[in-house]
């Protein structure tokens, strides 16, 4: 029987609520807007005895990830949260966490990166580290932030890779929304006790973590990491299935919204999917065959499933909340790759860049993308003045 509770929380508080139920062993934390409410809310839980996590208020994000690596290697559940410049500062440590196969969980409140400095939402921070060997899961709203915390943790521990749960800075992290939370025992049972395979504090079987690897072995290490990443999609679907049993909600690699018979589709990740759904609903009422593909799992990227879902769509607009200088925008590039795998499809695909540095995107902008005539030859900048 599902005994869930409905409450209203911001995305950041939803992350903290999930953390309260997970009760991680160690959390090194460092403040940065718009992530800070996550660690502040959680610190209050610890202060009130609602979680007994050991928090370390480190002196930088580089140290946050270094301490998380130390703790995770030691054999405990280690988690943190960050944004923007924090992600950039810890960028050195992210491939080390994945290379050492440590299932660290990190919430990211996605934000623009400098220069010029800007504290508002876009996806440049998480996209800059998309090849760091981390699992990346995008969230549309507070409910998904909460749910993905459990899914990502279980997934990370099952394949021994670190995972990021990504919410849109301010838009999701600071907006109050209704969501359902699990009963604590159901949440605890779902994640179970952590049993590390190899760990540093195993004094009977001392291990060396982070050795020097020369050209005769390094390549094999990386190949094994690829193999671990290859297992993620299957494991993710299995875990989503198990999670549905306790939460009642369906989770998939992505959300296909009114896509079955769609002639035109938008592909987007994050909170803008919510706006896009309203636009789709309105256009559907007017008889237009439009749909939406909302990305969830971005790393590893589910090429085959995405290609399959989009293969009958004639016109596809891919919305990236980031820019890739001198290259295709990341989500656009992945969607093109997905479709390239499908033989004999005839489609037009358009790259749209929107919302950098927190620039608003409205329902009307999305309707316009659906209705405009475009040929995909040039990038469209939505909302650019």
């Amino acid at each position: 029987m599902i005994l869930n509770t409905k409450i209203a929380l911001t995305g950041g508080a939803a992350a903290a609520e999930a953390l309260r139920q997970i009760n991680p062993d160690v959390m090194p934390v460092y403040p940065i807007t718009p992530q800070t409410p996550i660690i502040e809310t959680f610190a209050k839980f610890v202060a009130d005895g609602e979680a007994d996590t050991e928090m370390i208020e480190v002196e930088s994000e580089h140290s946050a990830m270094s301490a998380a690596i130390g703790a995770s290697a030691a054999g405990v559940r280690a988690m943190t949260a960050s944004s923007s410049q924090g992600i950039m500062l810890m960028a050195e440590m992210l491939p080390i966490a994945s290379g050492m196969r440590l299932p660290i969980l990190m919430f990211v409140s996605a934000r623009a990166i400098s220069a010029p400095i800007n504290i508002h939402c876009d996806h440049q921070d998480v996209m800059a580290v998309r090849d760091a060997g981390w699992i990346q899961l995008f969230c549309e709203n507070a409910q998904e932030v909460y749910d993905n915390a459990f899914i990502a943790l279980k997934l990370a521990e099952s394949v021994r890779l670190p995972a990021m749960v990504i919410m849109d800075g301010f838009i999701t992290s600071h907006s109050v929304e209704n969501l359902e939370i699990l009963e604590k025992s159901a949440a605890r049972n779902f994640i179970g006790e952590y049993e590390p395979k190899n760990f540093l504090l195993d004094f009977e079987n001392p291990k060396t973590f982070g050795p020097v690897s020369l050209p005769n072995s390094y390549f094999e290490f990386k190949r094994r990491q690829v193999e671990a990443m290859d297992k993620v999609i299957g494991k993710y679907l299995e875990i989503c299935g198990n999670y549905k049993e306790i939460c009642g909600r369906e989770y998939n690699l992505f959300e296909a919204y009114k896509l079955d018979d769609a002639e035109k589709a938008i592909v987007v990740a994050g909170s803008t999917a919510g706006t896009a759904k309203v636009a789709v609903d309105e256009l559907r009422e007017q008889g237009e065959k439009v749909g939406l593909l909302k990305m969830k799992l971005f790393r590893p990227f589910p090429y085959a499933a995405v290609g399959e879902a989009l293969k009958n769509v004639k016109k596809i607009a891919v919305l990236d909340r980031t820019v890739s200088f001198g290259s295709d925008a990341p989500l656009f590039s992945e969607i093109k790759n997905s479709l390239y795998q499908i033989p004999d499809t005839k489609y037009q695909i358009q790259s749209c860049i929107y919302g950098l540095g927190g620039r608003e995107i409205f329902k009307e902008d999305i309707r316009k993308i659906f209705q405009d005539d475009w040929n995909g030859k040039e990038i469209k900048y939505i909302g650019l003045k």
Partner: protein
Amino acid sequence: MNNDLTEKFAPGHSTCAGCGIPAIVRTVLGATSDPIVVVSVTGCLEVTSTLYPYSAWKVPFIHSAFENGGATAAGIATAVKALRKKNKIPDKKRVQVVVFAGDGGTYDIGLQSLSGALEREHDFLYVCYDNEAYMNTGGQRSGATPFGADTETTPAGKNSFGKTEKRKDLMSIVIAHHPRYAAQANVAFLPDLKMKAKRAFETEGPRFLLVLQPCTNLWKYPTSEYVRIGKLATETNFWPLWEYIDGRYKINWATEKPKLLEEFLKTQGRFKHLFKPGGEKVIVEMQKEVEENWKKLVNLAEI
């Protein structure tokens, strides 16, 4: 090799002939019977002891990056606390988290991480083996390189006498964090190092050891000479042996008549340019600095 010495660090490492780092590691780790986790940062020790698929470490060991010895130790020491709460580590069983890092990883790139870990009062021992330059990359100047030294990035030449800045006073920086224990030691004085390591292991909270480690490659002397040259560093007061215990300073070795710094300098290729015409002024300045530092230390020790 002696079984006691190799109990925690095996002989199969690849440090250079005449390198004192293994002696530092063995002396420090030999001073406790508690379970140990070793953290090392990128540098000579890490690259010469963990060449996959081999490891010289018979105790748990982790290396993750260059500038994060303090933070890595913080994560491990905190994991120990978390496991103790869950009764996964018995209450009475002390776990020693020991960092070994070079001067580059400590004075320079790792200073912030060390500072944070000291300030947060984690239960760990940080040992800096100080060979006074970036030796894993082949001898570039660091914040630990003494004034007047010839290095790959501060070469002596027609218009240069080597490094033009004084060495960073790392001990004062560490002590400004009010650690539980801090000491300056020298690989050429192993019983003194052992005594300090023992005291450090018996103390809880943040502890720090700065150990001079003459490097044959940078300092340029015959590999058989490292103990003699290390001794000269202390006998000239270039590298005094002292401790900081609960706010008090204690000098561990002193002589009525310290040798002239020249005695130390002339044994090493990195200072040989100072013995050519024009170098005298630099030596005078170096001697003055040594005397001033010694006076300061003596004054502190008398407080």
